[in-house]
């Protein structure tokens, strides 16, 4: 035998997309405190943007998130276009909203699947991800890519949606709506899911205000905020839709909000496509010669909540400073309220409820013993524990 080699896996590993590190401090079965460590994979995107032209920044910020890759370009477009005060063509507004809402559908389906997996409902996981596939395929047809669509540009969009594609999309939406009915039924009517999620990881409206949490996390606690309605952009003030809220603030309420929001998104896309049909041919882009000196402050409602971009221009062709805030930045700290006081077996679903980027959360959550400070459990074991609890609940209910 030669020398032994140790291969460390994580927090840096090719498989880990965005390493994060949660430390749960436990006393017996109860979580007493929580810490979060980050910076393992800081890409310095704000700094990179300073060396790119305003146009190139779109493609940089698109790569911030792999799941909702259009939400950052959306907020950036709102910010940068506000400096010269560009009014984009109606057709571009509608196409922007269609892409934004399609993304919300696939992101919420992804969440439902993962939440199901965390609870030991792997059928729900398989279903949700299967139904998400046609939505991604639709993205490929409309934009040319299943992810990182590169649709946005200063003053409009880069590709048009013609009638043929619109018809295809409508067909897919009909299908997605039926499948969503199925998922809603599977979640809302299941007594075991009720037992596992109701009253778990509850956040009050005050907690939401203290942390500045946004999106479905806030709306599930009765905080009625949505950038699309409060500060309308793109085509959101041209179509009829409603903001979904729930009062309870627990994990079940968050699931409910996401599932029902999917219906609203489908409805928004249908209305946008109808308006596109009426609009017929038209410009999809306004020419913007230069960005004058000034401040651009823009936000957009991503599937996980408000994305905020702040751009400072000095009249050159690249930003002097570009500040980006993703929704998870203010939602993740709420774990300190939602997990603490609960059992370890509920911690996995509490962290999942906020919809942070899972791949990282799942692999890096670890449980520490409150007294000794020793690591007692990792993320995989934590999820296993959560699934076992569902089994136990199911047996107790005699199902």
């Amino acid at each position, binding site marked *: 035998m030669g020398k032994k080699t140790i291969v460390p896996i994580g927090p840096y590993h090719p498989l880990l997309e965005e390493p994060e590190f949660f430390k749960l401090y436990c006393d017996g079965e109860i979580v007493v405190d929580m810490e979060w460590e980050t910076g393992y994979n800081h890409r310095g995107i704000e700094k990179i943007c300073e060396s790119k032209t305003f146009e190139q920044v779109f493609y940089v910020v698109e790569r911030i998130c792999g799941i909702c890759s259009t939400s950052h370009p959306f907020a950036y477009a709102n910010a940068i276009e506000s400096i010269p005060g560009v009014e984009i063509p109606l057709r571009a507004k509608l196409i922007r909203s269609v892409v934004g809402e399609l993304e919300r559908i696939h992101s919420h389906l992804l969440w439902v699947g993962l939440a199901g997996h965390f609870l030991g409902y792997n059928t729900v996981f398989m279903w949700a991800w299967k139904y998400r596939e046609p939505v991604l395929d639709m993205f490929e047809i409309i934009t040319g890519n299943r992810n990182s669509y590169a649709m946005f540009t200063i003053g409009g969009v880069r590709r048009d949606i013609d009638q043929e594609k619109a018809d295809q999309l409508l067909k897919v939406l009909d299908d997605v709506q039926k499948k969503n009915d199925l998922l809603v039924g599977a979640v809302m009517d299941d007594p075991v899911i009720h037992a596992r999620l109701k009253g778990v990881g509850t956040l009050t409206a005050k907690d939401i205000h203290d942390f500045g949490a946004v999106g479905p996390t806030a709306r599930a606690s009765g905080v009625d905020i949505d950038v699309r309605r409060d500060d309308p952009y793109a085509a959101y003030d041209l179509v009829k839709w409603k903001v979904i809220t729930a009062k309870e603030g627990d994990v079940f309420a968050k699931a409910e909000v996401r599932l029902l929001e999917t219906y609203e998104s489908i409805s928004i896309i249908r209305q946008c496509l109808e308006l596109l049909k009426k609009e017929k041919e038209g410009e999809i882009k306004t020419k913007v010669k230069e960005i004058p000196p000034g401040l651009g402050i823009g936000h957009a409602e991503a599937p996980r909540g408000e994305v905020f971009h702040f751009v400072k221009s000095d009249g050159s062709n690249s930003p002097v400073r570009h500040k980006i805030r993703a929704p998870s930045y*203010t939602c993740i700290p709420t774990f300190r309220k939602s997990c603490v006081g609960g059992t370890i077996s509920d911690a996995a679903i509490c962290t999942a409820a906020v919809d942070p980027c899972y791949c990282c959360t799942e692999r890096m959550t670890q449980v520490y013993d409150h007294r000794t400070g020793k690591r007692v459990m990792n993320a995989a074991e934590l999820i296993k524990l959560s699934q076992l609890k569902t089994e136990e609940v199911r047996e107790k209910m005699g199902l």
Partner: protein
Amino acid sequence: MNIEQYIQELRERFPGIKDTEVVNQKRLMIHIPATLLQEITNYWFNDLQYRYIIVSAIDSKEGYEIIYHYSDDNTGWIMNLNVLLPHDQPEIESMTSVVYGIEWIEREIMDILGIKFLNHPKPERFLFSEDWPEGEYPYRRKFRQEDR
């Protein structure tokens, strides 16, 4: 919302306000001295229930600009507080006593720009590792200029 009336009322309540400007549609920037920060933050966050968004920090020619972004979700206005800190004394009171969620971003600004937030509950490294060299702040204008 009548923004002129709002600005006038705000100026009457806080006479120390240096300057106000409507940046563009539904965006208000208020320039204030650091001494007024706690009071206005308290008024906005607790009395008017504005939502805390984030804090931006810029190294500009005049000094370090710390911009606190808040949102009035009832009207859709984004309200911004701008505090200018001199280059030779980058220190400001931490707002964690008013806004609980502001803790992370203050630590991040400490890392990237070297601004000291006084009375911060956990003034530790956030983005950077513990062995990141002292005094190296990548978002300062002079950062490794000779390397470029």
